[in-house]
């Protein structure tokens, strides 16, 4: 017991153990909170989904199917009823009161439409195998079970804490001294191994407890007794496991993986007494199988790599389509339970052999090492400096973009963007328009108002390598347009586009630059080391319009308005409304028509929407020039004129 206490004191008092553990926990929490939900739509409409799941959650019975099909039919009926009612109203066939009466019950049906959509998608998936695929709220379980990559902070903290256990005395050759002691040698070594195992268990348990708490708090973990196949990534698995048992199996395997890594580190350090070769070996043993080679190899090799990414042991067969012949090929074969046990036994045997080797080698007595504060600090500074320097100039560059856009906004002051004018923008000197020519090809043309000369706005010479979207946004002397570059590499399976670029053109001298770049396909980096999720290109293809401010670009599609940050490139949905036909933006607020065709103002600073009038309207526009001298009256004047204009349009 004393020896354990002694080892703990060495690790936590003299080798900055608490600092590493603290950093580990902080980075784990950061990674967890930065992670996006697996099914963002289900997360956004959680209440609606839960309402449906309370009725039909669990196994898919005949009744449930009937209920869902009937509900789907009722929804589409209600949808068309609403459309007909409004069409009749706009055609002047019925009065507003009749309209209100007519749409009341369809809107009651449509209240949970977004949630129903999510559940219906899940139903389509479950219908293929109703015995194993149940309906449930999947986000929490996906977060726990479907992670495919390595837990990098855990691995680094294991390196930092465990490598010095044998190395510290070994590198000053004090280990021979311990052989001469009564309680040295194998006795001491036994306790060292025991202690390292305890540390690994403690780290694993704390990391997983943090994860479990976080996930159950954020997403909830309902219906743990449902089968594993309910999650789409395990759909083809043949293992009869419930979600909870799959989770416990996962954490058991992951702990086994960390223990295996622990034994690898101890084995290496006890034998060589040097850091560098051991760390290289362990890195190679962990990283190469995970990032370098195929999944089959990763889960076949004995060692920590497969167990540290345990989801593959539970997965079913995975197939892909051969691009040349069009036949489907098995990429990854399911690992049976006996196969898993065999691999576990092999790895355990390897670990036991390594422990025996460590015990044979024995170990030495610890020698106190003082680290100079200066070298510590300078190493830290250097690391920070290097990281900041090498990271590229992300901060300053983006800042610069934001500043100019902000200035533009200030210089012109009056922003008045309407979706109906998405293909058109005018300044004092130029008229910019999106036009289709006789071959249905889209061109953005600029016309000089003084001379009447027309010329293309997009002056990129590589015409075959990009496509322009039919929407523009103008602000003062700047015009913005979107182009998608076409992918010509072999990753064409995923998407035919490579990047989406939001370009800024200065109308003074037509200089052009990129202010937002989103990747549309998978990037293959260092032999598939990273496979980040690419942006959903089909969403961007259906854009109706866009506008931007100093921090975000706002994209309007037919069902929602979402914004993408310049810094992170992440898309988040701001407003959801079906049939966004009329949208306006005045610099601070977004105006749109909700599903009941009422004008709604969404304040960007407060992130709140507010229904502005009870009038029903089909379309509205902002007046092109709003006097913005009196700032406090600014919004009101816009509101008033917007409403007026709207009336004008609606009853025309």
């Amino acid at each position, binding site marked *: 017991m004393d020896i354990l206490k002694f080892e703990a004191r060495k690790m936590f008092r003299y080798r900055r153990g608490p600092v590493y553990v603290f950093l580990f926990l902080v980075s784990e929490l950061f990674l967890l909170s930065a992670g996006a939900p697996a099914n963002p739509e289900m997360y956004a409409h959680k209440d609606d989904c839960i309402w449906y799941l309370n009725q039909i959650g669990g196994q898919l019975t005949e009744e449930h199917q009937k209920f869902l099909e009937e509900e789907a039919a009722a929804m589409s009926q209600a949808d068309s009823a609403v459309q007909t009612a409004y069409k009749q109203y706009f055609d002047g066939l019925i009065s507003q009161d009749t309209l209100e009466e007519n749409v009341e019950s369809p809107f009651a049906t449509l209240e949970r439409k977004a949630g129903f959509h999510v559940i219906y998608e899940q139903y389509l998936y479950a219908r293929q195998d109703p015995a194993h695929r149940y309906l449930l709220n999947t986000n929490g379980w996906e977060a726990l079970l479907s992670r495919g990559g390595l837990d990098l902070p855990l691995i680094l903290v294991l390196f930092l804490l465990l490598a010095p256990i044998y190395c510290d005395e070994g*590198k000053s050759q004090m280990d021979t001294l311990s052989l001469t002691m009564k309680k040295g040698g194998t006795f001491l070594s036994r306790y060292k191994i025991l202690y390292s195992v305890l540390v690994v268990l403690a780290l694993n348990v704390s990391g997983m407890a943090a994860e479990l708490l976080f996930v159950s708090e954020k997403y909830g973990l309902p219906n743990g007794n449902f089968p594993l196949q309910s999650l789409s990534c395990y759909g083809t698995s043949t293992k009869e496991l419930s979600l909870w048992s799959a989770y416990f199996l996962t954490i058991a395997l992951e702990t086994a993986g960390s223990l295996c890594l622990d034994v690898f580190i101890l084995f290496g350090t006890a034998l060589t007494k040097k850091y560098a070769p051991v760390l290289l070996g362990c890195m190679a043993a962990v990283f190469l199988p995970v990032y370098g080679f195929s999944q089959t190899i990763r889960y076949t090799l004995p060692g920590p790599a497969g167990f540290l990414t345990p989801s593959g042991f539970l997965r079913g067969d995975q197939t892909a389509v051969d691009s040349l012949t069009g036949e489907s090929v098995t990429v990854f074969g399911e690992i049976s339970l006996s196969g898993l046990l065999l691999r576990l036994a092999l790895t355990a045997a390897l670990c036991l052999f390594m422990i025996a080797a460590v015990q044979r080698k024995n170990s030495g007595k610890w020698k106190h090492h003082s680290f100079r504060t200066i070298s510590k600090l300078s190493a830290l500074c250097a690391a920070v400096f290097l990281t900041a320097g090498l*990271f590229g*100039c*992300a901060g300053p560059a983006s800042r610069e973009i934001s500043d100019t856009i902000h200035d533009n906004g200030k210089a012109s002051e009056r922003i008045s963007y309407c979706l109906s004018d998405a293909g058109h923008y005018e300044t004092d000197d130029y008229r910019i328009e999106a036009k289709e020519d006789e071959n249905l090809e889209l061109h953005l043309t600029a016309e000089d108002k003084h001379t009447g000369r027309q010329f293309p706005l997009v002056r990129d*010479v*590589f*015409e075959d390598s990009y496509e322009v979207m039919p929407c523009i946004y103008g602000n003062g002397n700047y015009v913005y347009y979107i182009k998608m570059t076409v992918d*010509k590499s072999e990753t064409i399976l995923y998407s035919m586009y490579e990047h989406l670029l939001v370009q800024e053109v200065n109308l003074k001298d037509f200089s052009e630059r990129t202010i937002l770049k989103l990747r549309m396909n998978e990037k293959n980096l260092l032999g598939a080391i*990273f496979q980040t999720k690419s942006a959903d290109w089909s969403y961007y293809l259906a854009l109706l319009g866009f506008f931007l401010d100093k921090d975000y670009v706002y994209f309007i599609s037919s069902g929602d308005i979402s914004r993408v940050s310049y810094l992170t490139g992440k898309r988040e949905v701001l407003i959801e409304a079906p049939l966004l036909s009329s949208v306006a933006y005045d610099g601070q607020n977004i105006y749109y028509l909700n599903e009941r065709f009422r004008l709604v103002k969404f304040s960007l600073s407060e992130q709140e929407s507010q229904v502005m009038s009870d009038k029903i309207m089909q379309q509205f526009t902002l007046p092109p020039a709003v006097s913005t001298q009196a700032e406090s009256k600014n919004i009101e004047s816009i509101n008033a004129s917007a409403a007026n204009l709207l009336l004008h349009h609606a009853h025309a």
Partner: protein
Amino acid sequence: MIRQIYFEFRKHFLKFPVCAAVIFFLLLDAFQISGVYQEKSIFSMMPEWRGRYESLYPVYGGLITEEKIRDLMAHYRPLKAEGNLRPGSEYEEALMLEKCFVEPLQYAYEYRQNAAQITKRALENADFYQQMGNGCANRKNQQIAGMFSGRRIPELCYTEMYQYYLQYDFSVFLVLLLVIYGLVNVFVLEKETEMELLLQTTIQGKRKSAAAKLLASILFAISISLLFWFADFLLFGCLFGSFGGGNCPIYAIEYFETSPLSMPLFFFALFAMGLKTAGILVFGMAVLLLSRLCRNTLLPFVGSILLIGSCLLAYDADLPSACNPVSLLICRELFHWVDFIDLAGIPVLTWQLCFGTALLMLTAFSAVILYDRRPGPKSHAFHIHMKRRDTKSPKTPKNRQE
């Protein structure tokens, strides 16, 4: 000095573990490349095509002439019309002709026209921007016109090997690991055994030995990189069964259709090797600097992993990469588009800027490594002073007793 460099090289790098790691990683690399061949090459998917291709290559391959095109289309069109989608030998033949001859030939034939179009448009743009008084954009377009004028692909070559060789960068990962492993010890080795005090007292010690270490490290990084790049090249050539196509221009590969360069593929392969080596050197010098600043191996090792990992993540997240050496490691992306960056009104190609910043970083790191005066005479005294204070402090003896 040369003797000293050789000595440092032998001390740090000509060791059994380093050599064993290099050989092991070379084997892994070969394994991975054979995986690429199995997965991607047309001839590994359709082994029976190779013989047919080799017999048809002398007929349709090589210098592109109108006559060859006519012959090929006369052969291909009836097959395509009859074979339709019915699997069979005619269908196979049509598919083989399409993938191996017709599509590449079409691309090569049309490239000349496309390049001429681009040149024309660039010249128009240059005029337009001159009228608008935009000097920078004018210069950009003139440069583009210069690059694309007269471009054509005269020959139909088998370029599959170059295509996948230039897309392959698993070996970069291996070289990075090896460089971390090799360099992380260079300055730490003497510190760990407290021998660096001894080094101070020798004539060749201090800065001279630091310079020797630096040069030996650079030599190591370069030789390891070149070893792997050439091994890759040879392995790709052997597996794909051809080194041909080296004299085709780089834009004969569709990925480089809009590349700013127009050198032959073989020279581009050499050029890419140079750029990758420069990227490896930048990371190597960063590792060396960490090694210079720390007193044991563990921290610089983990620090290097973090540093390289964060650079990779930053590159992957599409953060501006002009200052990120990873863009040199994955250098094919620099030559995918003609990409300019404005430097005070002067358009500079992105790869030139990347290379420039990499050189700057290299010199800065080397200068810091060389002119870092620790452990010099002053800090040496300081070190001893700290040691004394350490032994006097009440904690240490107590701990020793335990």
